[in-house]
Each structure stands twice: as structure tokens, then as C-alpha cells.
């Protein structure tokens, strides 16, 4: 099985390096094809590993070589394929295969075609390291690697200021979280003496609660960055500047879920610190509704989907925080399928509309882009959680978890979010595909995407439809070999049915409401005059709660200003000036006293006499004091000194 592990791991690397050879040459289609094939190979290997694990339940664990070894520290390049990582591997390789193929079409006209595949494959490689590593350091390699690739890919169109800005923002924000993660890793090392998962987890049982809490918090800070949890969430929406396949792969299906993966992977840790878990869950629930509200009004389809991703990540964290790790992982998987699909669909739309992203400028695209419309609608249905599509099984399960665990506030929030999710998903569906034709007036002549792109998307569509009811139980059985096998059943059947049906009804109502509101012919391109656009709530939401503004205003600018002050005022005027000042003291003293050497002999003689007389005075005072020391002492004692 090692062989397949290596293939799964290194095929993307080979792909990346292969594509890299052609980065400076003009577009070559075969680069894309070869890359896709190699990623597909990885997918196949992952599948073989999956069947192996499903069949034997045996974990594949091996060490490639030593990475760092010094003192007590020993970090190998070690890889483990167990139930958790194989899930991730499947998701990653599958989605990336599809995205690769899709990108052959999507990037067709881009001059950086070859480079794109190099980056994309490099990303897959990093992601594989992230999920397959058997220790925290290896995880961190992947963690940073995906960050790097994300930077490269967001800034792929580096001539665009907004793209490069977003790339840097994403990277830096992730770095902040990575610091937390690094500290978490240090804590693990100094408390357990190892960074291997198995060794560390085994040692956790003996640690005191406070230490574990700190470890949990710091690792979670790392997860927050990568998964764009509040308050480190702003980069995700901005990251939509990257090419759409990137958004689909990185910012929907894989990288952003790394945080969830980390929490799930560290389940043995979080199981010991339920208070941190509760915090994670609460934060997740908050982010779920927080992101959903922002998605309500946004006028950029990719951003809407990005907020939706954010919201769904909130769900996952809510589940993971509550201890339902397998549920979180399941939702992660299901979400990957339909969210990637949604993004790719959006990509088709964008392509058709020449990178126009405002749904208000589209309308009635369903006529020309039937395939895309169907796919996106179904993906949205899945996202909304309508039976029997994937979302129903994964998302409703999270609601149940919250309910069963008696976290009713979280439950309520999540339920509300479910309604909002349905609303905003179908808001854009309605705006894009239905209603009046608003784009022709703007000079767009949309067309359907290449057929092979649609075909490439189809596995995702199928999975989005069937993943729920076909995979849930086998998955449960597989993954609970490692994860706590808690089943979440509402004991009263009545309650169960009321809840399920109630939720479904609520969601469907939201969908109808969305259709009703946004299919009407009265929809116009907003111009800032309508009453709604001037309402406080709308402004708050469209400005993302003013958080980016606040960051810009209260963090970025002060940082910039402080830097300038530090350089111009402190470094030059204080630190450096004091050094030069010392030098100048000597120089100026020399300059000001050199006139002592007036060149006049008389002055020279005077100096000489003066020097002698000065010394003489000192000598005589000293001598007299010595001579009359007795008397002086008497007088002084008489004075009472």
C-alpha cells in the first residue's frame, strides 16, 4: 500500500514540476491534460487506499525520512493514511481532478495557462501533505504550503492590484493564525516531547487541564485563520479575486476546511477540553449566521458563495466543537462537493458574462446556459439542505447534534442560518438564471461553457445529489474506527419528525420567498436610490459590518504610519542620531577647542604656565590640607561635622 500512498502524495508534485517547466513558454494544452491525468492518478491511488482501509481497517503508516532531529526533537517526514485522512484525500483528489479538467477550459484564453497548472498542482501536493502527515510539523508544512499556493493563485492575475492585494491579505492574515498554530505546536512539544500525533495524543491524558486548554486554544487559532473564522474571515471574500477554479478548489472545498480537519484530527485533545469545544461551537454558530447575513445582500456572485462557504464552515466547527467530529467531517465532504459545483457553475457564468459578477446585471441566463443552471440549482438545493440531497444529511445532522446536546441557542442560530442559506442561494439563482434579461442591454452575449467542462462537473453534481443517502452509513462505520462514534438520535420520534419537517418547510419557504422577490420583473440594477439600499441594515451588511473598513482604518493604516514613524523618527532621529551624536560630540569638541592651538607662541607659553599653575594649586591645596590636617579635623569637629 506504501506505493499507492507515495503515488497519491507525489503525483501532484510531479504534475506541478512538470507544469513548472513550461511556465515561461506559451500556453500548451497538453500541460493541462498531463496535470489533470496525474492528479487523477492520485485520485485513483487514494481510492485504492480507501478500499484498502474499508476492506481491512488497517492503517497505512510510514516514515519517508528524517526531517529535523536535534536535541530531543525528532521530526520525520511521516505519513499516515487512516480513516480521517483518507476521507480528506478522497475529497481533495476528487475535487482537484475535476477542477483541473475544468480549468483546461476555463483558463483556455489565459497566457498563464501553464503556470496556473503548476500552482494548482502544487496546491494539491501541499494539501496532501497537510492531510497525510502523521505529525504536527508535517501538518504545518502543508498548512503553510497551501497558504503559499493560495497566495500564488489568488494573485494569479498579478497585474490586477486588487488580486495582489487580496493575495497578500490572505497570506498575512493566515500568518497571524499560523503563529497561534506554531505556539500550539511548541506547547505540544515541550509538554509531550514529541510532535507525532500518536505519541502526543497518548501523552495528553497525563497533562493538566490548563495546559491542554492552552494547546487547544492555540491550535484552534491556527484553524481559525485557515478556515477564515471570525475575526480572521475577511480574506476569504477578497480571495475571490483569484480565478474561479481556484475558488472552487481552495476556497470552498479543500484549504478552508483544513481548520476543520485539524480540529477533527485533534479530537482526542478537544475531547478532553469540552469548554474549548463549546467555544468553538459557539464561534462556529456565530460565524454561520454572521456570514449568512452578509451573503444576503452582496452583489457579487462569487462573494455570495464565499460567504456561504464561510457560513458552512461555521456549521462544521459547530459540529466539531460539540464533539460530533464525524458529523463535521461528513459535512466537510458533502459541502466540498456541492460548493465546488456551485463555484464552477459560477465560473461558467462569469466566463459567459466576461467576468461580470453582479447578478443584477444578468438575469434570464437560464435560456442560454441550461446545463449550468441545472447544476447550480441542484447544488443550491443541496446547500439548502433539501431532502434527499447531500446537504440534508449532513447539515440537518448538525442541527440535530446541537439539539440533542441541549445547546438550544446554537441550535436556534443554526436553524435560522439554514433559512438564510436557502434564501441567499436562491436569490442569486433567481437573479442569474431567471427573471428579466438585464445583460443584453449591457452588451453581453453569454454562451454555455465547453461541454467537457460540464461533463467534468457532473461527478460533483452526482455526488451532491447522492452523497447523503448513499454514503452516510458506510462513512459512519468507517470513520468511527477513529472518531468517537456518537450517534445523534432524537429519542422521541415525534420531535424528530416535527423538527425535520419543520426545518424542511422553513427552508422551502425561504426558497420560495427568494424566488418571489428576485424573479419579479421589477428588479433593476441597484443604483443606490432605493429605500432598502439606504437602510442601516443594508449598509451594515453590504459593508460587511464595516469590519474590513475597521481593519483598514484601525490596523493597516496605523501600522503603516507607525512603521514610517519608527523609521523616520525613531530609527533615524533617535537611534541613529544618538550614535552620530556621540561621534559629533568628539568631532565638535575637537573643532571648538582647536583654537587653543592659536599658533601664537605667547599663548602656548601661557598654556604651559597655566597648566603648571593649575597643578601647583592642586598640589598646594593638597599639601596644606595634609600639613594642617590636625587643625582641620579640630575645626571640623568643632563645627559638629
Amino acid at each position, binding site marked *: 500500500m506504501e506505493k499507492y500512498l507515495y503515488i497519491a502524495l507525489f503525483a501532484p508534485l510531479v504534475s506541478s514540476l512538470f507544469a513548472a517547466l513550461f511556465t515561461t513558454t506559451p500556453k500548451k494544452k497538453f500541460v493541462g491534460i498531463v496535470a489533470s491525468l496525474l492528479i487523477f492518478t492520485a485520485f485513483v491511488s487514494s481510492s485504492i487506499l480507501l478500499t484498502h482501509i474499508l476492506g481491512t481497517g488497517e492503517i497505512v503508516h510510514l516514515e519517508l525520512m528524517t526531517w*529535523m532531529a*536535534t536535541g530531543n526533537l525528532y521530526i520525520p517526514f511521516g505519513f499516515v493514511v487512516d480513516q480521517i485522512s483518507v476521507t480528506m484525500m478522497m475529497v481533495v483528489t476528487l475535487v482537484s481532478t475535476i477542477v483541473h479538467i475544468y480549468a483546461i477550459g476555463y483558463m483556455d484564453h489565459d497566457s498563464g495557462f501553464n503556470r496556473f497548472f503548476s500552482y494548482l498542482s502544487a496546491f494539491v501536493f501541499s494539501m496532501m501533505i497537510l492531510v497525510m502527515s502523521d505529525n504536527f510539523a508535517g501538518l504545518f508544512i502543508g498548512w*503553510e504550503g497551501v497558504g*503559499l499556493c493560495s497566495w500564488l493563485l489568488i494573485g494569479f492575475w498579478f497585474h490586477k492590484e486588487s488580486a495582489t492585494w487580496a493575495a497578500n491579505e490572505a497570506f498575512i492574515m493566515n500568518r497571524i493564525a499560523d*503563529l497561534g498554530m506554531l505556539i500550539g505546536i511548541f506547547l505540544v512539544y515541550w509538554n509531550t516531547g514529541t510532535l507525532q500525533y500518536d505519541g502526543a495524543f497518548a501523552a495528553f491524558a497525563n497533562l493538566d487541564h490548563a495546559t491542554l486548554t492552552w494547546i487547544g486554544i492555540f491550535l484552534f487559532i491556527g484553524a481559525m485563520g485557515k478556515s477564515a473564522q471570525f475575526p480572521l474571515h475577511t480574506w476569504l471574500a477578497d480571495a475571490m479575486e483569484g480565478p474561479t477554479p481556484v475558488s472552487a478548489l481552495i476556497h470552498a472545498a479543500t484549504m478552508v476546511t483544513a481548520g476543520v480537519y485539524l480540529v477533527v484530527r485533534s479530537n482526542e485533545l478537544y475531547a478532553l477540553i469540552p469548554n474549548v469545544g463549546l467555544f468553538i461551537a459557539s464561534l462556529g454558530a456565530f460565524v454561520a449566521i454572521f456570514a449568512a447575513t452578509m451573503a444576503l445582500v452582496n452583489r457579487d456572485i462569487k462573494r455570495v458563495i464565499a460567504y456561504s462557504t464561510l457560513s458552512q464552515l461555521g456549521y462544521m466547527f459547530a459540529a466539531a466543537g460539540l464533539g460530533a467530529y464525524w458529523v463535521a467531517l461528513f459535512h466537510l465532504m458533502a459541502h466540498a462537493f456541492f460548493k465546488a459545483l456551485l463555484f464552477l457553475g459560477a465560473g461558467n457564468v462569469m466566463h459567459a458574462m466576461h467576468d461580470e459578477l453582479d447578478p443584477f446585471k444578468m438575469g434570464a441566463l437560464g435560456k442560454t446556459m441550461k446545463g449550468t443552471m441545472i447544476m447550480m440549482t441542484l447544488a443550491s438545493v443541496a446547500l439548502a439542505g433539501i431532502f434527499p440531497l447531500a446537504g440534508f444529511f449532513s447539515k440537518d445532522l448538525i442541527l440535530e447534534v446541537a439539539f440533542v446536546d441541549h445547546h438550544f441557542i446554537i441550535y436556534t442560530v443554526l436553524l435560522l442560518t439554514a433559512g438564510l442559506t436557502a434564501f441567499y442561494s436562491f436569490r442569486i439563482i433567481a437573479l442569474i438564471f431567471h427573471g428579466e434579461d438585464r445583460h443584453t442591454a449591457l452588451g453581453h452575449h453569454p454562451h454555455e461553457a465547453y461541454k467537457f467542462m460540464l461533463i467534468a462537473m457532473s461527478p460533483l453534481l452526482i455526488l451532491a445529489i447522492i452523497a447523503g443517502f448513499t454514503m452516510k452509513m458506510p462513512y459512519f462505520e468507517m470513520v468511527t474506527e477513529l472518531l468517537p462514534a456518537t450517534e445523534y438520535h432524537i429519542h422521541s420520534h415525534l420531535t424528530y419528525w416535527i423538527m425535520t419537517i419543520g426545518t424542511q418547510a422553513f427552508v422551502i419557504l425561504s426558497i420560495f420567498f427568494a424566488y418571489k422577490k428576485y424573479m419579479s420583473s421589477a428588479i433593476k440594477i441597484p443604483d443606490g436610490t432605493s429605500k432598502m439600499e439606504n437602510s442601516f441594515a443594508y449598509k451594515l451588511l453590504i459593508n460587511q459590518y464595516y469590519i474590513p473598513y475597521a481593519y483598514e482604518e484601525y490596523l493597516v493604516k496605523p501600522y503603516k504610519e507607525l512603521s514610517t514613524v519608527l523609521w523616520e523618527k525613531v530609527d533615524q532621529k533617535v*537611534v541613529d542620531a544618538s550614535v552620530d551624536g556621540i561621534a559629533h560630540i568628539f568631532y565638535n569638541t575637537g573643532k571648538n577647542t582647536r583654537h587653543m592651538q592659536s599658533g601664537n607662541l605667547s599663548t602656548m607659553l601661557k598654556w604651559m604656565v597655566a597648566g603648571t599653575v593649575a597643578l601647583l594649586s592642586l598640589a598646594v591645596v593638597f599639601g596644606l590640607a595634609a600639613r594642617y590636617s590636625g587643625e582641620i579635623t579640630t575645626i571640623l569637629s568643632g563645627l559638629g561635622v
Partner: protein
Amino acid sequence: MLDHILSILIFFPAFAGVMGFMINKESMRAYGTAVAAIEFALSLWLWFSFDNSVSGMQFMEHMALIPSFGINYILGVDGISLFIIIMASFFTMIGIASLSPAHSIKNMIITLLFLQMTMIGVFAALDAIVFYVFWELSLVPMLYLIGAWGGPLRIYASVKFFLYTFTGSLVMLVGMLFMAYFFYQATGVWSFAILDWYRLILPESFQLWLFAAFFFGFAIKVPMFPFHTWLPYAHGQAPTIGSVILAAVLLKMGTYAFIRFSLPLFPDASVFFMYPIAILAIIMIIYTAMVAYAQKDIKQVVAYSSVSHMGVIILGTFALNVEGISGSIFLMIAHGVVSGALFLLVGVIYDRRHTKLMSEFGGLAHVMPRYATIFGLMLMASVGMPLTINFVGEFLSLLGFYQQSHILTLLAGIAIVVGAIYMLTAFKKIFFGEVTNEKNRNLPDVSKRELLALIPLSIITVWLGIYPKPVLGPINNSVEAVVQLMHNKATSHEAKMRIPNVSGVVISKTAMKEGH
């Protein structure tokens, strides 16, 4: 020959430099490259013959110089100095090979060869005075390099560089003389041999003063905040080759000296001063990173980033445990490679445009994709991307220091954030966006000569990032010896606590795992 390989390594370049006066101007570059290549080969041979399993000094040489005053010519290498020596010879080689045409190139190459002598001398010396001789002597070629081939402020910069470091090292010299005097008092014999000094256990109050004296010299060389202001000038004005060697090797003298002198000689004082120095290091890391962010000149950015990274090295050194010190030594090499490469890269555009202002550039990724790629790689190494050489060092340094203080490490860790900020911003300014300046429209991409230097560096960056063991292993052995020595010598209770006792168990444990 192996008995004297260190002497050969030290004096061969100098001898060749003297001979170089006879070489024709046109063939000087070839001559210089050849000499440097031979030297590099010799240093590789040194590595090859180096016994990795020995933690002590190897290839020791001993010759009486002024025995009545305890000054002897003693050389030797261990895992700590070995790689810095190799790096010094490596950088001289690629530096000369990739030298861009300049006036009086003959003088320049001869200067570089002399510089090489002093650099290797510093790292191979095991006698404090011999060490000091090379330490001071290294200032002279550098002074000339900056002063003769530098930018418009070159004289100010070079004199500042010289005097600042000179002043610091004079204080250190007084410290050394004190140390020798204490040794004399204790044993009745004058000796400046470091290995002799290692055997001397000083009372803590003496240690504090001596530590401070040595610190002054080393800190300026490193340079530590607030003694760093000579560096931006030196880098800003120096020619590319000067900056490269300054950043790659000369700065390492300071940090190396901390490990060679301060820690083993004054373990208690090291513990005593650990927090103040760590705080200085953290100021260095964050403050200079912020200052770097405010720069307009790309070379200054790299220069300040150097200071920032040196902060991490200091922090790792004062972790006082094997992980931290090994990490800091590794980071010295890493920082040498990466910042050396960055300076070379800056030199590439400087050669083309004769400006280093970032505002003059923009969109270079369109024009010079290969250049952008290599720059990007080095940028990522500089910000500590895993699987690049820098990460290993930074990770270990921070990891090591975490044992001493959690909160300070957290603060120091901000390095990875602020580092990313200035580096990415600079990269963005230069490479991203549209080409706005017409002059940049037709810049040629990196030439073969430049690649000659950059490709090996890129390879090393990645290779040692993925597989640091060949370097880390020997370092580890020697560092364990140092830490053990410190532990044994420590007198105060706190120092005993802080400095781990590296027993033989650890080594066998690592070995066992390796076998597995």
C-alpha cells in the same frame, strides 16, 4: 595535508590575493573564480573529512605565537563553525563568479580574497587573540569594498561601519584581556586559548561584567537593536557583492561568537541576561520589521529584514538548550543563503536600472518572469516557508526559546507575520501590477552569469529545507557538547535549572529513532 587544512583554508586566499597583483586585469575574474573554487573545494573536502560523530574540535592546529603572553595560533573546527566556513567560501566563490563589471575589478577581487581569509580565520580560530585579529581584520576589506564601490553615501557608510564595529570590538578586547587575567590568576599561566578558558569557572559577578563587555562587541556586529543603525547604511551603499558577504557571513561572526564565547564562558551570566537579551531580540524582530515595511529602497528592505532575522538567531541562541542553539546555528546558515541570495537578486535589477527604489519598478513579473520566480522563492524562504532552509532554523530557534519563556516566544513569533508583511508588500511593489515605467519595459531577464550564482542558492535553499540532516547532525553533536559544558559549569541554581543536562541518553534516543 589534513593536519594543516585549516591554515591552508585561511591563508590560501590571501596568498592568492597577493599573487593576484601580478595577474592581468582582463583575466582577473577568471583567476578569482578559480581561486575561490579551489578554496570551496578545499572546504568541501574539510566537510568530507569531518567526523560527524565527534562533538569536539577537529583538525586542531597549534603553534606558539607569543607564548609568554599566552597567545598561540590555535585553530580547529567543530560542527558549529564547519558550515559557516563552508558558507563563507561558497559565497566568495559565487560572489566572484557572478561579479558584475565594475571599475578596478582587480582590486575588488583581491579585496574579496583577503576578506575570505579573515572570514575563515574568525570561524576557525580557537585562540581569543587570533580570533580577534581576524575579527578586526575583516573590517578592512569590507571598508574598502563599501567605500570604493558603493553608492553616493559610501564613505559615510563605510566609515560608520568600521568605527562602530571597531568600537564595539575594542570593548570586547578589554573583556578578553580580563578573561585572560582571570585565567592567569587562577592558574598562574597566561592563556588566550578558548578551550582553556572553557575550563575556568568564574564567580557570577565577574561573569556579568565580562558578559557585558563581550556582548557589546558581539551585539554591534550582529547587529542588535539599538546598535543596528550602521547596517542599513552599509547595505544600502555597499556594492552587491559587499552586501552579500556582509549579510551572509560577516554578520554571523557576532552570533557565532555568542555561541563560542558568551554561552560556554559565562553560563550564569547568560541565564541572567537571557530575558533582557530576549527582549532586545524581540524589539529587533518587530521593530526592524516595521521599519523595513516603511522603506522605499528595496535593498534597505532586505537590510532591515536581515536585522530582523538576526533577532531570531539571537533568540535561539539564548534559548540555552540544544534545540534553540542548533536552530540558531542552522538559521545562521539559512539566513546567509537566503539574504545573500536576496542581495544578489537586488543587485540584478540594480545592475540594469541603477536604482533600487521600489517606486521605479512595478510589474516586473511580466518582464522578468525567471527573475520573479527566483525572487519569489527566496522571498518565501525569507518569510520562513516550511521546506525552505529558513524555516528549519526559525522553527527550531523559536521552539527552543519557548522552553524559556512562552510569552516572549509568542511576541517573537510575530516575526512570521511582520516578516510576511514587508516582504510581500515589497514583492508586490516590484513585481506585481502593470509595467508603469517605460524603462522597465525591455529589461532583460536574469543572465547566465547571474543564474550561475542564483541557481545553486535556490537549490540549497530547498535542499536543506527538505533535508537539513547533513548539516543539522554535526551541529547538533557540537551543540550538545556546549550545552552540557554550560550545564556543568553553571554555578547558580537558576542556571542549572535553565540549562538542560544533556545526558548521553538523548543521543542514543535520537540514534534509535533514526534507525527506526
